[in-house]
């Protein structure tokens, strides 16, 4: 049997969690009768009914608010925000409300809320459907942010997010949507806050996440042909970040590069660089390298997008520049 696709395991995870816990509900644009704009919630309405699976108006602020309020009142809602660009419309509910409830109530209320959203480049959609805004939400205490890069992690992280007692933003990549990969049989959970070494190596640590992971793995193969054995760390969780895995890897490789498709300034690469500067600087043999998008929005034309994004070749060249 073929391995399942990334989107199919998201669908499976939602089915399993709704089956397991009747307080899990789904709401979002086109999630019920259509089964999700990209198919992730197929079959949920038919199986779990209209009380738990709801199409909403195009109202991102109220959708996230709906999730926060329902979570405070005993449910485990999963809210789908079609593209992470649209999270901008709901920031009050995420940043001022969801993130603060546990703290301001001193633990008397919690917000077990999952926000699923798509991040990163995909389909010539220009500047408002392609942004990588993961650093925004990772900067807010009280929120957790995960970004699976494989079908196995997509399933395991989504299930962990739904069971977590905090607001968790689960970023999914449209560029990975139809990628296939092995998924362990039966109950499969991936812990939030734990990075994964997707490729072990001795000469350099490359830290990345989400849609860039397959590209970095390709670059690592090419580098290997050139005699550079790269270790690839997939962060999987952007907040809380797994410093330990990064620093431990660096202590063996003594070189580090970070790859993301968000713009370089203030991206998660800056956080990794700062962690290394504070806690691992004596392990470094060469400067830290950040390989990321330039300081501009992403254009529609595929030719322009190719220039803009970290390509396999740019990653290879970038890593070579610290040797």
């Amino acid at each position, binding site marked *: 049997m073929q391995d399942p696709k990334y989107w199919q395991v998201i669908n499976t995870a939602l089915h399993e969690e709704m089956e397991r816990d009747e307080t899990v509900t789904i709401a979002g644009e086109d999630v019920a009768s259509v089964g999700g704009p990209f198919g992730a919630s197929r079959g949920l309405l038919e199986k779990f009914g209209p009380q738990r699976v709801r199409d909403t108006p195009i*109202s991102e602020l109220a959708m996230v608010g709906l999730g926060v*309020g329902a979570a405070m*009142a005993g449910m485990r809602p999963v809210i789908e925000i079609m593209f992470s660009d649209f999270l901008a419309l709901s920031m009050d*509910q995420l940043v001022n*409300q969801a993130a603060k409830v546990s703290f301001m109530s001193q633990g008397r209320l*919690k917000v077990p809320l999952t926000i699923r959203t798509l991040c990163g480049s995909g389909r010539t959609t220009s500047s408002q459907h392609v942004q990588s805004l993961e650093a925004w939400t990772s900067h807010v205490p009280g929120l*957790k942010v995960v970004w699976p890069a494989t079908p196995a992690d997509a399933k395991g992280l989504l299930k962990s997010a739904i069971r977590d007692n905090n607001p968790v933003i689960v970023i999914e990549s449209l560029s990975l949507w139809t990628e296939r990969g092995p998924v362990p049989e039966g109950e499969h959970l991936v812990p939030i806050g734990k990075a994964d070494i997707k490729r072990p190596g001795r000469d350099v640590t490359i830290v990345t996440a989400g849609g860039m992971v397959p590209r970095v793995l390709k670059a690592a193969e090419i580098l290997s042909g050139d005699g550079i054995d790269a270790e690839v760390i997939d962060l999987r969780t952007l907040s809380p970040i797994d410093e330990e895995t990064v620093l431990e890897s660096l202590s063996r490789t003594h070189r580090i590069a970070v790859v993301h498709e968000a713009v370089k300034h203030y991206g998660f690469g800056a956080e990794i660089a700062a962690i290394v500067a504070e806690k691992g600087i004596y392990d470094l043999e060469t400067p830290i390298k950040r390989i990321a998008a330039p300081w501009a929005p992403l254009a529609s034309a595929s030719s322009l997008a190719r220039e803009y994004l970290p390509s396999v070749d740019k990653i290879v060249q970038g890593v070579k520049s610290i040797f």
Partner: protein
Amino acid sequence: MSKQSHNSLPSDRMLEMYESMLRIRRFEERAVRFVTEGKLGSTHASIGQEATAVGICEALEDGDQILSTHRGHGHCLAMGTRSDAFMAELLGKGTGTNGGVAGSMHLVDPDVGILGANAIVGGNIPMAIGAAYAAQCQGKGKVVVSFFGEGASSQGGCHEAMNIAGLWKLPIIFVCENNMYAEHTHVSVHVAIENVADRAAGYGFPGVVVDGNNVEEVFQAAQVAVERARAGDGPTLIECKTFRVRGHFEGDPEKYKNQEEQAAWEKKDPLAGLLKRLSSRDDIDRDKIAAIDKKIEAEIAEAARFADQSPVPDPDTALRHVYAE
């Protein structure tokens, strides 16, 4: 809505509402003194708006929930949060309702149905529909109240949330306390129509306007709305016309206010009005009123003493509960 005779409310209910309104008035007067004494940075007093808080909350039952605003002391006290712990919360003390973390604007006390006051104007409205959706899923007939001001009615989230509430027939009551000022701006400058309640028609549920300074009238409108919500017939928007007799915050010079309007509303003080109506009833013993006055004076004096003398929070509190277990 038709106005019932005030005498139709039983005397016990009237006295309960009087006690609750008096508690709010005395609590906030004491809080304002803490500001002048330099023990409280600032606060948003709801003095003169007690009838809306009490009239609405009096119509609720155990298990019902409210979400409140930055001017929410009244709502929280009307739901039954303890005045001593709340005063300590205002003063940033470890004995406060939320350990001094929430302060004046963010009280959370789920044991008495307070899912949170909120310092973002209009911020609670989208959350309130979530709580109401949970109530609908749980099927126990619980209702949710979202308090907000006429200023918040201009926020996009208010429109988004009311549309969903109307579509899904959620068990929620939207209570717009129209106190005529959004921060420092008069309602005539920021709301396009005379009655915010008229907007309910656009969401497919009833909107009613009541005299927000008449607690019986507010209570009766709330009872109708609560019954409708519990029956599964959906939301109601109740607009309570009232007036913010104090500034936006304590220390506000209030130079923007129309003095004639202020004076006219001061004559309609909700507590004085209720006291007058109580005194005119022959089934209410004057001694009972005096006993309530005495009880509240003592309660608030004790709350102030407790708050003032309580220790500041343990420093670790600043980093606790950022995440739930």
